[in-house]
């Protein structure tokens, strides 16, 4: 059962870390492409 519990914890860790990792990689999808890009007009496309 240890492998199952560890896997579930890792699921949570990955989900929690994903937004930060994406942001660091420049892929903040919701902010960059859907909203802020249109409002701010400061993103090169």
């Amino acid at each position: 059962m240890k492998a199952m519990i560890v896997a579930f914890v890792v699921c949570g860790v990955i989900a929690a870390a994903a937004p930060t990792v994406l942001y660091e990689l420049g892929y903040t999808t919701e902010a960059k492409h859907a909203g802020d890009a249109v409002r701010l007009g400061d993103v090169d496309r």
Partner: protein
Amino acid sequence: MRAFLSIALCLLLALPATAQDSPPAQGADRSATGGAQTLEDILARQRGEEVDDTARRAAAGNPDDAAGMAGQLGTLGGASDSEVWRALRYGFNDVTVSSGGPEARVLIQDAGMSWLEFRKGPLSTYGAGLLGVTVALLALFFVLRGRIRIDGEKTGRTVTRFEALERFGHWLMAGSFVVLAITGLVVLFGRTVVIPLLGHEAFSTVAVASKWVHNNISWAFMLGLVMVFFMWVLHNIPNRTDLKWLAVGGGMFKKGVHPPAKKFNAGQKMIFWATIIFGASISASGLSLLFPFDLPMFAKTFAVLNDTGLPQLVGYGALPETLAPHEEMQLSTLWHSIMAFVLTAIIIAHIYIGSVGMEGAFDAMGTGEVEEQWAREHHGLWLEELQEQGHAPDPGKAGTPAK
């Protein structure tokens, strides 16, 4: 098998596409209106029928037709308000925006209504029906067959079925998939099921949380999917033993029938390939949705399918190879949902047989150790291989070392 999968893929892909791009009826008499739409056109559209809108598409005005600036109507330009809006609707207007990609230049996209109707109607209805029928069939199976027990006498010895890394990969994918399925259903059935139960305010919180969790735990699912594929693909290549297993229904329907199987039987191989194929398809469409407008894939897929001739062969005609950015997203949501419904139904059956449906099955993914008699009955050839390699106790050979 490959041809069947191709045809099935083609049909499923074409379903939402045809919902958005049905050919209009031709040949209506519009001489009374000079080619413009008639009352019959309007009524037909209100009845949900397709009408020939060629004339409307063409009536988008022309700036070159504008009167001279010094003339009486010189400041009005060459297109009326109606013509400007019509051009926007059909995507002919040369819209200029200060930022954003091609999607920002689409101001009106009426295919979105077809998408919404398909999502609210057939997708939700048949999707929920599929899950409901699956649960009902499993309940009926349980009533008729009961729990599949270990027929022979238990030995008290165990063999290692799955190593820790294998179980980790399985549960990484399985745990995230269950969360993805639940949060996905919350998003799809929010208006029809959750809001009536919880109210708008509570649903708002639940929906925001579901979307966040769905988007971010998807990476765990994709990682688990890749792990599972590479760990088990060699064990899941079909072979002749599978035919024997399938010929007797895997012994699922009759007590005491135990067809031979290696590490994975034919049923498990079907689950494996369904998970890989549907999981990959869900992941691809999910990535397209995670990065809106950056990863369009349907126009390209339709072009490839058209080249094969399959859509034309089954009577769909050529699929659209030019799609608006928003249409790409709409098709991605539909495809994502269709694939997810099918995989969820399969996984519900998998969860059933791996838990209450079969005695001793959960141990394989729980502790990793299974009762030797269970292994003999359900994976006899695999057990023999282990015994020959000395990885499992062999009662027939004295002094065989056990792992």
